[in-house]
């Protein structure tokens, strides 16, 4: 009984992760400019990756692999904002103007 419920939770987790990855990919294509697209990419990195890894953890059972999977998640968590910030920062410095309104004084 426990096996089946863990299996079901793991499958739900995979499905939720895949949903977020698919939505993020749609956003990457559909959103108007580079700054907005970073938000979609950030969604893939956080929710998509976390839920897929959670599903894998439930599938793997409790072993050393679980800890390794947790660390993969932590590293994605730490590196994703850096790539996002570098992309946005470089686009701003090269003079890409964002779509939409600019409020107040910007740097």
């Amino acid at each position, binding site marked *: 009984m426990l096996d089946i419920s863990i299996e079901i939770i793991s499958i739900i987790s995979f499905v939720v992760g895949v949903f977020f990855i698919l939505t993020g990919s749609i956003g990457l294509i559909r959103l108007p400019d580079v700054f907005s697209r970073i*938000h979609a990419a950030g969604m893939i990195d956080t929710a998509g990756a976390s839920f897929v890894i959670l599903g894998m953890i439930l599938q793997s059972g409790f072993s050393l692999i679980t800890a390794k999977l947790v660390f993969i998640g932590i590293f994605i*968590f730490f590196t994703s*904002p850096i790539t996002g*910030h570098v992309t*946005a*920062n470089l686009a701003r410095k090269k003079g890409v103007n964002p779509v939409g309104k600019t409020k107040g004084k910007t740097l």
Partner: protein
Amino acid sequence: MINSKSISLFFSLFGFWLLMSGHYTVLITSLGVVSCLLCVYLTIKGNFLDNETIPIYFFPRLIQYTIWLIKEIFMSNITTAKVILSKSEEPELFSVKATQKTNEGKVTYANSITLTPGTVTTQIKDNVFEVHALTKEFGDDVRSSEMDRMVTWLEKGK
């Protein structure tokens, strides 16, 4: 130079090594100890051992902050998915002031903003952050400076 920073660096390196290795014979574990000691020695030698590389004064409040941040990230993921699927984006660019004193606090705040989908820090100058938000609601979230207060609270440590 043996202090709390080098000791905590050694133990986190060695713990990570144990997790990645999976073989626990005497020879291999002692090789791991030696390589971790060498890494700590090089860190001390290169003068990287400061508050910026090992912010141990964050640790007492880090768990509570992480739980709060994961909750925030989950909520804004749902909102971002809604915005993408309902084509209701209205991007905006604005500046906010950060109240953190140290560089580590500012980095944590900027990374937390970027990690939350829907908001990205684009530029930083002194304590002014330039933020790009996907909709007005995300912008209001940042402008309400709840996250700013949380990071300042985290930065104070214990």
